[in-house]
């Protein structure tokens, strides 16, 4: 029953966070300096009528939150006919607006690119988790030895290395050997079946390796620190006193207990992982959500920026929720706070 309370609490928190993110998203793009209409059409010689027409199309002629006048007139429902209500309504319908640059539906744009980012992030993260946890455990176990120092230095170094710069270095090194940009070689279509997907896979190698290296370094440090804390606990001394072999102590006691904070940290750093994906996609021109955001920034395509941010934030919130659920399964001591 306590676990259920915990889950309900976490769900509620996730829900409120999503609401806050949605409202923040709305606010952010309403406080843009300058006239939003001007952002759409860059000509300074726009006539008044043209401005009004554009305003109407995008619903910018309505008040932002609440129409006081209509409320006083008795039109209570009409009083809520504001930009904010339109935003919420559209959001719930899955309508995220239209790209300024390509006139394409933002939701469509996001839907077609989302899986590319997922593949990249998942691939890199899974590799990083396995490698990071194993190497981190070894480093902690062999605390103080040159092996530990070497591993620690690798971890610290990869923390200091900006993700995009690692991408650039790998790009330079792999030039000529592996594809360095885009998702497929020009001209190849999905109809080509296996050939197409093999090509995609080839293009995926460098970006995934980049992600992998960066996050392996980070997870090594987290795991190492976590395991060291666990190994300093009294029950480890008990295990040793009992005559338990090092291997069994590590596996049955250290690993299990270090896993819990590790899960929390993986979830917490997932936001950082997503940020890394933006950088990697930009460097390797991998056409995912990250690259989309980069291009949208350059083109000042605000609806796309807004939509991608929303999508990324929502994903991270959900990932954290998942981690909380996982945590409650792993840790039998979980109680309602």
């Amino acid at each position, binding site marked *: 029953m306590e676990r259920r309370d915990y889950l309900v609490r976490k769900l509620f928190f996730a829900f409120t*966070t999503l609401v806050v*993110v949605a409202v923040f998203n709305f606010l*952010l793009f309403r406080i*843009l*300096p300058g006239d939003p209409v001007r952002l759409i059409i860059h000509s300074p010689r726009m006539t008044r009528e043209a401005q009004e027409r554009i305003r109407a199309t995008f619903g910018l002629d309505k008040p932002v939150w609440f129409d006081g006048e209509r409320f006083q007139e008795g039109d209570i429902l009409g009083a809520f006919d504001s930009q904010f209500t339109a935003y919420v309504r559209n959001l719930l319908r899955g309508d995220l607006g239209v790209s300024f640059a390509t006139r394409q539906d933002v939701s469509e744009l996001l839907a077609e690119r989302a899986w590319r980012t997922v593949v990249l992030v998942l691939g890199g993260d899974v590799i990083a988790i396995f490698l990071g946890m194993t190497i981190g455990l070894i480093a*902690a*176990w062999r*605390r*103080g030895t040159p092996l530990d120092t070497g591993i*620690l230095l690798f971890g*610290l*170094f990869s*923390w*200091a*290395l*900006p993700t*995009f*710069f690692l991408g*650039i*270095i790998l*790009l*330079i090194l792999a030039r000529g050997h592996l594809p360095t940009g885009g998702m497929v070689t020009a001209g190849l279509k999905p109809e080509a079946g296996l050939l197409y997907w093999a090509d995609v896979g080839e293009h995926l190698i460098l970006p995934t390796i980049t992600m992998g290296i960066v996050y392996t370094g*980070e997870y090594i440090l*987290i795991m*190492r*620190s976590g395991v*060291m*804390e666990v*190994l*300093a606990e*009294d029950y*480890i*001394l008990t295990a*040793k006193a009992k005559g338990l072999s*090092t291997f069994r102590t590590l596996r049955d006691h250290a690993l299990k207990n270090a896993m*819990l*904070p*590790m899960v*929390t940290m993986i979830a*917490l750093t997932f*936001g*950082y992982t*997503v*940020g890394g994906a*933006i*950088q990697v996609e*930009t460097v390797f021109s991998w056409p995912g959500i990250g690259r989309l*955001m*980069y291009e949208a*920034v*350059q083109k000042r395509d*605000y609806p796309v*920026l807004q939509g*991608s*941010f929303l999508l*990324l*934030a929502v994903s*991270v*919130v959900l990932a*954290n929720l998942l981690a909380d659920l996982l945590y409650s399964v792993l840790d039998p001591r979980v109680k309602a706070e």
Partner: protein
Amino acid sequence: MQALKQFVRKPMGVIGAVMLLVVLLIAVFAPRLAPYDPQERVQVTPDDILAPPDAEHLLGRDDAGKDVLSQLIYGARVSLIVGFTASFMSMFIGTTVGLVAGYYGGRIGNGLMRLVDFLMVIPDLPLMLVIIAVMGRGLLNIILVIGLLGWTYTARLVRSQTLSIKERQFVLRARSIGAGGARIILRHILPQVLPLIIAQAVLDISVSILAESSLAFLGLGDPTLISWGMMLNFAFERAISRQAWWFLLPPGFAIVWISLSLILIGNTLDEIVNPRLRTHHLFDARRMVALAVGESAGRRVSEGGQDGPFGCA
């Protein structure tokens, strides 16, 4: 202080400190060291664009014909300014929030921690990216964005420390003689938390510098300044096809240099402050037992269960 003596004994920390000193000196003496003034307009011929290194331009020229080495030298200033200012801001906010939430607890504490949780969940780079895209590029905006979003980890850290410290003898004694909240926090709790904060601050500076360089690389840096991230932005867009490694690599290595120096220092400080990370049962059981015995004998050993920067909550 005793901590300083410990610090000097650790090679990693000393190396980090030296590396940092180099950057500081370069930044301070930039006008003297840089062979050219990066802001100065120069007449360039097409041959000068992305020219490889030669005697007059030790690191060659960039895509606009300007000297790369000078830009690299001046870039140190931006990184340091952003790093220290943003970090100071976030440490200040984080420490205040952490102390208040930890000491007063109750509704205020919970409320503050909810806020911390909100901010922690939202992904950093996308949020910063979106805010700067809307608010406009500029040094102040960058510093604000990094500083106002980076305090959450510190807040959690400080709060958990405060929670354990406030139950200690000397705090209870101070309260019993009627000392008020602010006084207790400032005179009793803060000094205890300070070593942890300092270790965390150093790491925070490196995080801020990396954040600035990422934002600059993605095209959101201050257009009136040269930062290493911005150099990489230009280099990536214009120099990569020409394989102009002299423009592509030095800024990146510079970023690594300064981040690494801060991380080495910070990690060493953290090891000093957090004794649990020094050794463990499977490695040196005898020492561990000795430490434990020392603890129970009443000697003041720092409290366990602290968070390291890469540690667990």
